[in-house]
C-alpha cells in the first residue's frame, strides 16, 4: 500500500472541508441538535422523577456515543459521495490507486472527521449540560473502540450499496443508523424487545456498548465478556464489509459499471 496515495484521498477531504463552510458545519450540526434535544429531555426527566436515576448519563451518554458511531460512518460515505457527485470515478479508479488504498483513505478521512466531531460533542455537552462523558472512566475507550469499528463497517457497507445500485441508492444509506437503533437498544435494555428483535440486537456490536453503559449506571462495571463480544462482532463486520466491497468493486469492473457509473446500471 502506498501512504502517498492514501494521503491523497485524505487531502481531498481537507480541501473540500476547507473550501466550503457547509461541509465543515455539517460534521457537527446534527450532533449539536441531538445533544440539545436530549439534554433538555434529561433535564426535564431529572426534575420530574428526582435524581435517584442518572437520566443524563443514560440518555445523553447514549446519544453522544451513538452519534459518534454514525459520524464515523458518514465520514466514510460522504467522501465516497463526493466522487459520485463530481463524477470523478474514472479519474480515481483509472489511476494507480489500489482499492485497498482507496478504502484506507476513506477510513482515514472518517477518523479525522469523527475526532473533530467527538471534540465538539464533549465540549458542547460539558459546557451546556455539565455532562462529562469521562464519567464512564476507562470503559469509555472500550466503548469508543467498538463504536468506531462498527462505524467503519457501516460506512464500507454503505458505499458498497451505492456502488452496486448506483447514485440513487444514496437515500438507502443515510437512514441505516436510524434503522438499526431500535435493535441496538440505545435507550433501553434488549430484554424489552420481542425475541426476534433481541436476536438481531445480539448480532450488532453497539448493543454491547449500550448494555455496558447500563451496567455502569446500575453500579457495575463494563464486563470483559461484554467488551469481548462487542469487539469480536465489530471485527467480523469489518471483514464482512471489506469482502462485500471488494466483491461489488470487482463486479463493477467486470460489467463496466465503474466506467459508466452515472448510468447506474450496464446490465
Amino acid at each position: 500500500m502506498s501512504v502517498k496515495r492514501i494521503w491523497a484521498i485524505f487531502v481531498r477531504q481537507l480541501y473540500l472541508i476547507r473550501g466550503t463552510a457547509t461541509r465543515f458545519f455539517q460534521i457537527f450540526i446534527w450532533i449539536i441538535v441531538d445533544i440539545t434535544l436530549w439534554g433538555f429531555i434529561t433535564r426535564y426527566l431529572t426534575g420530574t422523577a428526582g435524581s435517584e436515576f442518572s437520566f443524563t448519563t443514560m440518555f445523553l451518554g447514549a446519544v453522544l456515543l451513538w452519534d459518534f458511531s454514525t459520524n464515523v460512518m458518514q465520514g466514510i460515505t460522504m467522501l465516497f459521495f463526493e466522487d459520485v457527485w463530481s463524477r470523478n470515478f474514472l479519474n480515481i479508479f483509472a489511476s494507480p490507486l489500489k482499492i485497498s488504498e482507496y478504502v484506507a483513505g476513506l477510513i482515514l478521512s472518517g477518523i479525522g472527521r469523527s475526532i473533530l466531531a467527538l471534540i465538539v460533542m464533549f465540549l458542547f455537552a460539558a459546557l451546556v449540560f455539565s455532562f462529562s462523558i469521562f464519567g464512564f472512566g476507562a470503559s469509555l475507550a472500550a466503548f469508543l473502540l467498538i463504536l468506531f469499528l462498527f462505524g467503519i463497517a457501516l460506512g464500507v457497507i454503505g458505499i458498497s450499496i451505492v456502488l452496486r445500485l448506483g447514485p440513487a441508492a444514496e437515500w438507502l444509506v443515510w437512514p441505516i443508523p436510524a434503522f438499526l437503533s431500535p435493535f441496538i437498544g440505545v435507550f433501553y435494555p434488549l430484554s424489552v424487545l420481542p425475541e426476534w428483535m433481541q436476536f438481531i440486537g445480539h448480532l450488532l456490536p453497539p448493543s454491547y456498548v449500550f448494555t455496558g453503559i447500563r451496567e455502569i449506571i446500575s453500579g457495575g462495571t463494563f464486563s470483559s465478556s461484554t467488551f469481548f463480544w462487542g469487539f469480536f462482532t465489530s471485527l467480523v463486520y469489518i471483514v464482512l464489509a471489506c469482502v462485500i466491497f471488494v466483491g461489488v468493486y470487482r463486479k463493477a469492473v467486470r460489467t463496466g459499471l465503474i466506467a459508466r457509473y452515472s448510468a447506474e446500471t450496464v446490465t
Partner: protein
Amino acid sequence: MTVSKKPVLEVRGLTKNYKSTTAVDSVSFEVRSNEIVGLLGPNGAGKTTTINMILGVLEPTHGSIRIEGRDVALERSEALERTNFAAVYSPLPGNLTVSQNLRIFGLLYNVPDSEKRIEQLLEEFELKQFRNTRCGVLSSGEQTRVSLAKATINRPHLLLLDEPTASLDPSTAQSIREKIKEYAAQGEGGVLWTSHNMYEVTDVCDRVLFLSHGKILLQGDPKTLPGEYKKKNLEELFIMVAREPLLLESM
C-alpha cells in the same frame, strides 16, 4: 517523426463480451515510444471500451494488455503509474481548484517533487492565472487544458486521449495538438488518440487503426491509407468504414 522499436503498449487478442453482444472482438495492436496512434471508428465501434480496458476500469473477457511489459490484469497499479489519460467525458472535480486537483493527482501518481512539476504544468498549459480557480467555473477549453495537465503530470510513457479536442474552438484545438505532438516527440511516451476529426488525425497521428463493430478493419499511415483504398482523404475512408464495413472485411 522517427518511430523507435520499443512498444509501450501491447494489446493481444483483446475481447469484451456483454451477454450476447461483443463490444471488442480479438483486437491486437501496439503503440511504440514517440508514436501517436489514432484509434478511429464510428460511434459504438469499441474505442472507449478498448481504452477503458487499457485503463483497468473494465475487465476484458479474453486477451492481454501490457504497458511497458507489465500485465494490467496482474500488475494494475504498477502499469498505471506509467500511464495517464484525458477524456472529454471525465473532467476533474469542479469543486476543487486547478492546483488542488493537480496536487491530489500528483500524490496519486507518486510524482517526485510534485510542486515543481505543477508549476511547470501551469506554465506550459497557460493555467497560472487559474491556479486558485475552481475547475467547475472554467471554460471548456480551460478545463481541457487542466485535464491535459493532469494527464501529463507523471510524464506517462503511455498517454491515452479520448477525443481531447472535442468541444474546443479551432485555435485552442490546434494549440492542444501541438502540445501533444511535442510531448510525443520529446519524451519516451507513446500516445493512443481517439478523435472524430479526420483533419486532426491526419495532422497528428503516425499511424491509425480503424475499428468497426469491435474489430480492427484496417490500419496504416493516415496520409497514404486513403489512397490505398482509392479515397480522396481520411474522412472519405472513415465514411466507407462506417457505412460499408463488410465490404472492407471482404477486401
